């Protein structure tokens, strides 16, 4: 009882805070409609700063930056929106448009088709989506098991057993998806290049050889870190080091 009261209190507080943020969001949307993208972007950023996020928020922010020709910021916002809603059609479309404006055309390394399918399948849902699936299937398995134990009828038992088995399998798959989407995406692995052009070095040292140059808006995967230097990998498999301040984590 005591617990429930605390919970309700927390929720009401949350609602109070988010009410203000919601007002700001509404205001920003209004500014966007009036094509005042600079102001709208500032307001969206304000909402983000206050600690809120949503797919629509990132999406609208990305749109503002796109209109302001700030392509790397747009790409970053769309990527963040996509992380929350991997299957949002608008987000994917605008992200694609923004990526077309990126100078570097990086051809992704071809992958084995089943790995590609598998990754595409896992990217189908956000971490929350997979979490819900995992819980639902866990319940399914539990209920199936209980029914199996409770009822003597062979048909009911067989049915319950199949339900439990399928649920356990699906739960395992959801668990993998959850892990992939949540922990992997969360551990700061991807970033967007923000400076207009960066020379990627062969070692975490300003004096080392320039390997190649990338430009703003390129998405890189971070594989290692030494001091203020990040080891990055491009979609085409190129690897090098660049200063951490040149990029922003998704």
């Amino acid at each position, binding site marked *: 009882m005591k617990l429930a009261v605390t919970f309700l209190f927390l929720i009401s507080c*949350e609602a109070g805070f*988010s009410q203000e*943020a*919601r007002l700001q*969001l*509404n205001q920003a*949307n209004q500014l*966007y*409609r009036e094509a005042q993208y600079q102001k709208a972007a500032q307001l969206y950023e304000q*909402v*983000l700063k206050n*600690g*809120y*996020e*949503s*797919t*629509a*928020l990132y*999406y*609208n922010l990305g*749109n503002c930056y*796109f*209109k302001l*020709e700030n392509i790397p910021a747009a790409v970053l916002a769309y990527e963040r929106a996509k992380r929350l809603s991997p299957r949002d059609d*608008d987000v994917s*479309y*605008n992200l*694609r*448009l*923004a990526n*077309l*404006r990126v*100078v570097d*055309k990086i*051809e992704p390394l071809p992958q084995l088709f089943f790995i590609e399918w598998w990754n595409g399948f896992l990217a189908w849902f*956000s*971490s*929350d989506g*997979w*979490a*819900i699936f*995992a*819980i639902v299937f*866990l*319940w399914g*398995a*539990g*209920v199936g*098991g*209980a029914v199996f*134990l*409770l009822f003597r009828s062979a048909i009911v038992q067989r049915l319950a057993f199949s339900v439990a088995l399928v649920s356990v399998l699906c739960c395992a798959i959801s668990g993998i998806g*959850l892990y992939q989407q*949540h922990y992997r995406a969360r551990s700061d692995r991807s970033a967007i290049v923000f*400076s*207009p*052009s960066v*020379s990627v070095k062969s070692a975490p040292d300003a004096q080392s050889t320039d390997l190649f*140059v990338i*430009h703003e808006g390129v998405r890189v995967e971070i594989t290692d870190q030494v001091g203020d230097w990040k080891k990055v990998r491009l979609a085409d498999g190129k690897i090098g080091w660049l200063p951490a301040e040149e990029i922003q984590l998704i």
Partner: protein
Amino acid sequence: MRSRTTRLFTINTAIIALSAWSALAQNPSFTASVDKNSVSVGEQFEITFSLGGTTAGNNFTAPPFTDFLVASGPNQSTSMQFVNGSITSSISYNYLLQSKAEGKFTIGPATIDYGGKKLQTQPTIIEVTKGAPKPKAQAQQQGDADLDRQIGDNLFLRAKLDKSRVYQGEQLTATYKIYMRVNISTYNLSKVPSLTGFWSEDLEVPKQVQLSAEVVNGKQYRVGILKKVALFPQRSGTLQIDPMEIDCAVQVQARRRSNDFFDQFFNDPFFGNVRNVNHKVRSEPVAVTVLPLPAANVPRGFNGAVGKFSMEAWLDKRQTKTNEPVTLKVKISGHGNLKLLQSPPVEVPPDIERYDPKISDNITHQQDEVAGSRTFEYLLIPRHAGEMKIQSFPFAFFDIEKKRYVAIASPAFSLSVEKGTEVATLPASGLSKEDIKLLGEDIRFMKSDDLSLRRKGETFAGSPLFFVLSASPIVSFVGFIFFVKRREKVLGDVVGLRNRKARKMAQRRLREAKKFLQQKKEEQFYAEVSRALWGYIGDKLGIPPSDLSIDLVRMSLESRGVPSEAVVKLTSAIEQCEFARFSPLSNSLQMDGIYHEAIEIIAVIEDQLG
């Protein structure tokens, strides 16, 4: 056709009074003459067929000129002469021929009809030689042979070099001088030296040849400089400087038969009593030794520059915007093979587009030395914003005076590029057709209806609620199992338990029975088998042991679909056991049979009741 003929036959009328020719008036003569009997290959000469004394000849047929090319002709000319009141005339047909090949050729007779007679010319022999034609061929100029010999000593051409040993790429100057003790009215270069192996630059010489005096072999000559060339050897070894050849018109005194005092007096060229004779003069080839540049310690940036140079480099601005060009100028000045200088290796960051340099030269020839500057103008267009660095680039040359390589380097430049207003040009490569179509499209409009927000970084996955929800089914399931167990115990679901354990119990009892069988304890064996069977059936059918009877068992088994055969077997086995227990007559063979039968029966019933 007719007009062409009239055009070809140009008629020249000349009126010449000559008494000596009067005898020819009545007897026409038809002769062939050439302007020279000896020609070189490719040289042109003239052949004239003339009919003297009359113009009434017709049907002129020229001989076939098979060994020669007809450059022009026939050109017809007529001349009229008034001699002592009577008119004599002549007609001539003229051809300009060109020799084709070396050898001695005969031009056949030409024919013409005159007064019903056919007149013929004599055949003409032409000698075609290989080399230069001999000007003395003309019959009138027979005396020129020794004239040439005479000129030979007094007119020659020399090529002089200022150095005989040079390094590859070092400048040397070749001067072509004419030495003369005869007068020359005009000259022209007939063969300009090709100077292979050198890169050459003509140095200026005064247009009006200035003469100076020089003594060669005890003779005083007037010497004029005709040509001066700065040469830069392109390869090492012994190189030959080609001879130069000039055609000059040498003034020689016209010869008179008489040795008259007056004639001798007037033989001075001042009185114009001179004749121009064409004469060819050529210089001797000269060799020069070219040393290769040292192969050791060649510095970076060396590209064949030899001489003495300095380098300046500058950017026209240090700040620019994207897509606004910046000019980098590199000026190399000094003396040496300036025109062979190659553009220095200017390296720019990949974000700057660099065009090939525009090269402009400012070259002067100071005291026969090629000097000046060469400027390379690089157009740089930064394509992206940022701080760009243009690395220092090297330039090296071989210093002729110090005989070693000198390396110099440009300063490094920094260029700050701001984002221009222009939209960056998009690279067309790497975009598919579909992509290009998409480029023209606008982004999709905002999402204004969705105002839901959540705490940043707060996802359902990994939240306490998630863990509670995912743990709850597992906890519930485990709890459920405990609940079921406890309920079984509390409610004493003996029937269910007995059913599940029936077979195990029976097997345990049969194992016990087997022990007795081996120990040959008949009574205990039969008791155990009987108990196993009774127990099994009781457990399976859920009948308490007190209610068990053969009839009840038979009935309930048959009602559950167990074949009557098995039921009969079961009852008989039980009966046998009962019987044997109380009459110890049976043997071990019988015991064994019953044991196996019991196992079989249990298996059959287990199959049926499941």
